[in-house]
């Protein structure tokens, strides 16, 4: 199965009621596949007139308590930021998939990891967070998309799948995890708008003009974000117990680093890997713990250096942090990683 298709299947199995998309490479398989599957299943599919319309259709579906998703690639995700900010402000659950490509501007259509800042630091206007999940395999494209819907409903928050053109286009066999269960779709959603039959009218808004009202709302969001930080940090570590050099990487970069680390281990180098799966909330503690017992941490990203800033904050001077980057849709090879680590 192709990575992009695994996203679709994960969404469908998670009970996605409505999908709204717009064509852009390298995510085109998602709207194409959904246009067939969602309609077959009697669910909602619309090819929107723009990325803005697509994210606002998601807003509409989410307002009435439905599980909704949109997908795009980097320039398209920039266009969606207005809607994402409104969704975050109104605390509406939804899933947004970014199959990243090279930027800035129109950039190119190669896989890239250049939207880390945009995804994890806000992206749109105002003070808010998204849960950001970074799959590194086709299987995780399925699993994390499935999980994204549950997290979105549980915390009333937009969740972003931050993947890239390589994982999106990659084909691998996957076994569907039969233990995955939809958890939160039956939440009462006593905020949804579906007509005021038998109850008072409801209101969904992100405009809060009352004296002190927005401040209070934002502190409420902060409490929710703290709760997410407490409960939802996900990461994977390989050989970090005795690692002298630890590599930190996410998504496709981690996939490449993982095999480099394995090879180096076979050669007797004490190397390990930390792979954040949630980019927000960021796994600070494990990075801090590994930094305390390592000589160096190498951050490898397919950009000019973005996650490295969060790693440095987590390491907080406990050990030096080095960086290996590949911007503009470039990819580093396993050999380049190995050479870089050997030089450290």
């Amino acid at each position, binding site marked *: 199965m192709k990575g992009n298709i695994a996203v679709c299947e994960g969404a469908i199995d998670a009970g996605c009621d409505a999908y709204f998309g717009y064509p852009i490479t390298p995510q085109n398989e998602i709207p194409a596949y959904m246009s067939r599957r969602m309609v077959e299943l009697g669910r909602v599919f619309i090819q929107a007139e723009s990325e803005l319309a697509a994210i606002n259709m998601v807003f509409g579906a989410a307002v009435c308590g439905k599980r909704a998703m949109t997908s795009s690639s980097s320039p398209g995700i920039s266009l969606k930021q207005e809607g994402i900010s409104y969704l975050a402000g109104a605390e509406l659950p939804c899933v947004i998939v970014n199959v990243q490509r090279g930027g800035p501007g129109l950039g190119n259509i190669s896989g890239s990891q250049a939207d880390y800042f945009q995804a994890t630091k806000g992206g749109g206007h105002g003070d808010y967070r998204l849960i950001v999940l970074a799959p590194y395999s086709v299987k995780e494209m399925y699993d994390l998309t499935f999980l994204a819907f549950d997290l979105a409903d549980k915390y009333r928050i937009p969740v972003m799948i931050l993947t890239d053109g390589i994982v999106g286009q990659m084909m691998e066999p996957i076994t569907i995890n039969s233990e995955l269960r939809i958890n939160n779709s039956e939440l009462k959603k006593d905020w949804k708008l579906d007509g*005021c039959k038998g109850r008072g009218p409801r209101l969904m808004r992100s405009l809060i003009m009352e004296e002190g009202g927005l401040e209070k709302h934002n502190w409420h969001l902060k409490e929710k974000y703290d709760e997410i930080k407490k409960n939802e940090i996900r990461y994977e570590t390989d050989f970090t117990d005795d690692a002298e050099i630890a590599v930190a990487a996410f998504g496709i970069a981690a996939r490449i680093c993982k095999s480099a680390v394995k090879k180096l281990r076979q050669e007797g180098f004490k190397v390990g890997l930390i792979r954040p799966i949630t980019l927000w909330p960021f796994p600070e503690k494990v990075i801090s713990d590994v930094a305390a017992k390592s000589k160096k941490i190498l951050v490898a990203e397919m950009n000019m250096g973005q996650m490295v800033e969060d790693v440095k904050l987590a390491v907080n001077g406990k050990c030096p942090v080095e960086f290996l980057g590949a911007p503009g849709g470039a990819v580093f090879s396993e050999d380049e990683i190995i050479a870089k680590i050997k030089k450290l």
Partner: protein
Amino acid sequence: MKKVFSKPESLQDKNNSYCPGCGHGIIHRIIAEVIDELGVREKTIGIAPVGCAVFAYYYWNFDVTEAAHGRPPAVATGIKRCLPDRVVFTYQGDGDLAAIGTAEIIHAANRGENITTIFVNNANYGMTGGQMAPTTILGQKTTTTPNGRDAKRDGYPLKVCELLSSLDGVCYIERVSVSTPKNVLKAKRAIKKAFENQLNNRGFSLVEVLSQCPTDWQMTPVESVKWVDEVLAKTFPLGVYKECMKK
């Protein structure tokens, strides 16, 4: 004693924040009366715009969501496709519908979304203090056309009914005003039809309402309703622009 007049159930018992002489209050009430008469209050979901009427949700007594500036037709699409048996309508001003949200309204209309749009045209951006709107008429003074709208510099007023009535997905388009009691009654008939079309699954309906904005026009309420009739309606003629009763 027989009760002959009362506040519609679809309106909450609240004072509104509109300026004296503003048309929004009348249009809110018309919508509330129509929703009551059609008996659909409990299955109605309204979409409030950005601008003066954003607080419409404090005045209507049914479910209402906000949308970003210009995006109500996309939000309405998302709601209506997910809940096709609910009554979904957008309430939009001229900046919202005819400037920043031009793409959204054209495509929702062209898809034939089975929704109702109430388009309030007061020829300026009211909430932000009276700037030029896409529907500001030639020569009209606003805070961003201090010497009057000049076609060479600012382009021409955008005629939404004329534009949308060419689209195949559109069922019904009418332009009305709320400048006189007679026009208010006509406006109510049009708005009722626009909601009935939705209940009969006829596709997209839009009623453009020429509305007075005395504060930003710097007129008295009486002058402003006269200006609607004598000036604004010359650029934006009242009437039915499209009506097809296809099933």
